[in-house]
């Protein structure tokens, strides 16, 4: 059971696709002008990732090694087209704001990366868990980035007004805001990692000292 949990949390935290692996940067930066858009893009990517991981894991023994990449790309492109048409039918407003970036899920390195690195070598059940972990990690990152940008830039969160027009940093909604917010968030996670390691080292040193004096 611990192993299964690992598959899930690996993508969500320790190997987060956005902040640790820096995969799928284009949609991350482009579609996070608000928390709602981030959520929509995250869910669309999650759906494609789960379905492509399932199919690729099912056919992993049938596909010849040499042509595997084109086969994976066709499978992914098929699912992306399905999602594109579904969103056009049922979520027209979101489809319009995300625009170009829905068909561009095809070239999101995260999806092809998981197909190549994980689903082509593991069982269906494990691949679903891996897709869930990675997809939720990606969606979580998008929602976090979208929330920060929306709160600072427009003073709203998921469309709910927080403090009116009194304090809005408009540049956060513009393209530079995306780069700077993601950079600052990445620096924050780095800093947390560095200080955690330093604390660990200090503890080890203290333990050593205590051991020596005893």
């Amino acid at each position, binding site marked *: 059971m611990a192993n299964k949990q690992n598959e899930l949390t690996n993508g969500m935290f320790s190997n987060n696709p956005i902040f640790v692996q*820096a995969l799928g*940067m*284009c*949609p991350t*930066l*482009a579609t996070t002008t608000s928390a709602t858009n981030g959520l929509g893009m995250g869910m669309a990517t999650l759906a494609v990732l789960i379905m492509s991981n399932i199919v690729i894991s099912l056919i992993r023994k049938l596909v010849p090694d040499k042509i595997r990449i*084109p086969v994976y*790309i*066709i499978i992914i*492109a*098929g699912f*992306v*087209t399905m999602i*594109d*048409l579904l969103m056009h039918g049922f979520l027209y407003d979101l489809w319009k704001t995300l625009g*170009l970036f829905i*068909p*561009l899920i*095809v*070239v*999101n*390195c995260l999806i*092809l990366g998981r197909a190549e690195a994980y689903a082509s070598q593991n069982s269906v059940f494990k691949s679903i868990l891996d897709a869930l972990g990675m997809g939720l990690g990606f969606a979580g990152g998008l929602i976090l980035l979208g929330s920060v940008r929306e709160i600072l830039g427009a003073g709203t969160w998921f469309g709910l007004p927080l403090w009116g027009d009194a304090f809005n940093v408009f*540049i956060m909604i*513009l*393209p*530079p*805001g*995306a*780069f*700077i917010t*993601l*950079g*600052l968030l*990445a*620096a*924050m996670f*780095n*800093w947390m990692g*560095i200080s955690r390691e330093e604390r660990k080292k200090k503890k080890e040193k203290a333990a050593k000292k205590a051991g020596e004096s005893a």
Partner: protein
Amino acid sequence: MKIFLIFMSAILVNNFVLQRFLGICPFLGVSKKIDTAVGMSLAVIFVMVLASVITWLLNGLLVIMGLGFLKTIVFILVIASLVQFVEIFLKKVSPGLYEALGIFLPLITTNCAILGLALLNIQNNYGLLETIFNALGAGFGFGLALILFAGIREQMDFADIPKPFKGLAGTLITAGILSMAFVGFSGMIKL
């Protein structure tokens, strides 16, 4: 006149990297040195123009057959095989150019700027000539952003950057500041 406006707008106002966020992976990946940035830019301009023309022609065919919804699948396959074909062709015909572009060509398949450009040309209902100039502008815009950024990053190697900002974080913030410069162009050309 409209063609010139499309060209300039793709370079400055709607810069593919800094305003539209297309092709961020190579922008962050191969911008450590100016030499490699120049090589990558040339390869991207070349493939962009070729891919735009071919996908534009194919889209006409798809629309006639009533298969417009298949364009994402068809385009990505065309781009992937086109890149392979260009690689083989250059190796035979012009080994010098192949040497210069060689390593960057395979990387271009996963560059979302190429597929994005092909889809944008269709979305905006461009004619063939407009498509070619939009592709040229997008390619030059990509090159401009990449080479500027590589120049900044070469200087950054000598700077004393706080530890948490080393690597991806510092790179992203630098890109943000560069992007701010390009925001100044917004609204200058309305198409």
